[in-house]
């Protein structure tokens, strides 16, 4: 029986970052829907700006810190002590800003460039950290109305979600399990996936296409071998390489992969009974129709045998 969530609401500042505003809009939409369903209120940081991403890091970590710091400072002014971002690249930048601020040799330069009041009394966390540590898999399980029982899904974490360990302070750097446990709570079977943290080729889709072709291809191939019907991700860049570029990968390897790659929040939403359109499933490049068919067939079967015990 579905248990009502505790009425106490968690409120966190929300930093979606540039990718989620455009190419990864379905990650943003589904994250908001899922958090709402789990009783977490997300307050978008007003007038947020770009974190600077890899280009700012490679230019100078101080520039990266100041660009990200602007968003932390706004959130702090609004009275938040936690900011959540679903984008691992943004998370790295936000955490990097806090690290620079806490470094006595760099604080002065950081504040001089930032020109905003900032106390550093704010913490940056990922969506997974919020789901896994704050909300917990039990509460997620209790919210499921349409379990993904007939689906076999592998979680692909990518590089940054738990690495480097001292910096990210979340999950295991070699064998992360947070998404595994969430998928299991949704009812899916989760095969052992040895390539959980192998790099997908990152931003080299733009400058070195063939690198992404090679690296992403290995991940799709392994997912195929362990019998997955779909891949769950939690990074806009990983998703873009695995999904949008799957056609390029197929050309590179002369293969015919047809592997839907969904954000973890999209799987959560489906299991919570949210309509696929409200989760942006139609935005995927590799269509997920086959998965939706399996799920709706299962729904019908449940109904024909009287449904689950109410």
């Amino acid at each position, binding site marked *: 029986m579905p248990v009502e969530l505790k009425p106490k609401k968690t409120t966190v500042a929300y930093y979606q970052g*540039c*990718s989620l*505003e*455009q*190419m990864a*809009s379905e990650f943003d939409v589904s994250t908001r829907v899922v958090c709402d369903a789990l009783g977490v209120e997300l307050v978008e940081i007003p*007038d*947020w*700006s*770009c974190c*600077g*991403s*890899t*280009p*700012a*890091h*490679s*230019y*100078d*970590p*101080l*520039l990266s810190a*100041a*660009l990200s710091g*602007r968003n932390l400072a706004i959130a702090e002014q609004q009275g938040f002590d936690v900011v959540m971002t679903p984008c691992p690249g943004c998370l790295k930048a936000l955490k990097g800003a806090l690290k620079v601020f806490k470094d006595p040799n760099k604080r002065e*330069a950081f504040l*001089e*460039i*930032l*020109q905003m009041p900032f106390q550093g009394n704010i913490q940056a966390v990922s969506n997974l950290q919020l789901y896994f540590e704050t909300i917990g898999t039990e509460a997620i399980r209790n919210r499921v109305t349409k379990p993904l029982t007939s689906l076999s899904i592998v979680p692909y974490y990518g*590089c*940054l979600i738990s*690495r*480097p*360990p001292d910096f990210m302070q979340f999950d295991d*750097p*070699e064998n992360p399990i947070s998404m595994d446990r969430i998928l299991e709570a949704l009812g899916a079977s989760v095969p052992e996936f040895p390539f959980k*943290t*192998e*790099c997908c*080729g*990152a*931003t*080299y*889709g*733009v*400058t*070195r*296409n063939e*690198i992404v072709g090679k*690296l992403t291809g290995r991940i799709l191939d392994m997912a195929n071998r362990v019998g997955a019907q779909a891949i769950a991700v939690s990074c806009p860049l990983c998703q873009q390489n695995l999904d*949008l*570029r799957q*056609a*390029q990968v197929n050309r590179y390897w002369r293969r015919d992969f047809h592997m839907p790659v969904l954000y973890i929040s999209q799987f959560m939403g489906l299991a919570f009974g949210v309509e696929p359109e409200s989760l942006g499933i139609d*935005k995927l*490049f590799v269509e997920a129709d086959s998965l939706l068919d399996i799920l709706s067939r299962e729904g019908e079967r449940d109904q024909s045998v009287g449904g689950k015990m109410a």
Partner: protein
Amino acid sequence: MERVHTLAIQATSDPRFIGEVERASGQQISHCYQCGNCSASCAYTYVYDYPANQIMRLVQLGQKDIVLTSKAIWLCAACQACTTRCPCNIDVAKVMESLRVLSRQEKKVSGRDIQLFYDEFLKLVKRFGRVFETGLLPLFGMKAKKPFTDMDLAPRVIRKGKLGLIPHKVKGRKHVEGIFERFEAYCSRREKDKG
């Protein structure tokens, strides 16, 4: 990959280099004992001219030019696999990042197209406060004289309604621009203090 340098360790050694890199990265390069874990963990070793462990060794040997002009430092994707697995707790990814910064400061960048991509990205941030990736692709293609990069993807991106034509301007974009300006001012002051 073809090696462009012949090593003449003594003649080309700059003994101050290791200190420079240690300061910039905050890492003790001298602790590296060449176990090779970083290179074995790196998904890019197959495209590097010098694998990560050799970059570390070259830094120890003061081979500044070779390191700063290497392709490896610009092909590093900052994936953190090396850092996670270094038994000496060296943040190798941080070292690679610092080497990119130094190679830019010394005008020795080998991965010009990658640098160009990063520069175009930062220009958009400075101007609009946010970045529109899909707006960046054609721009990058034209500047790098590769106008057809990813053109096969464009129709699909448009079909999914994912191509934003007008970048969303941040109200505080003047403040973001100010961050860039104050950063540049800070850097030139730092340069002057050094020189």
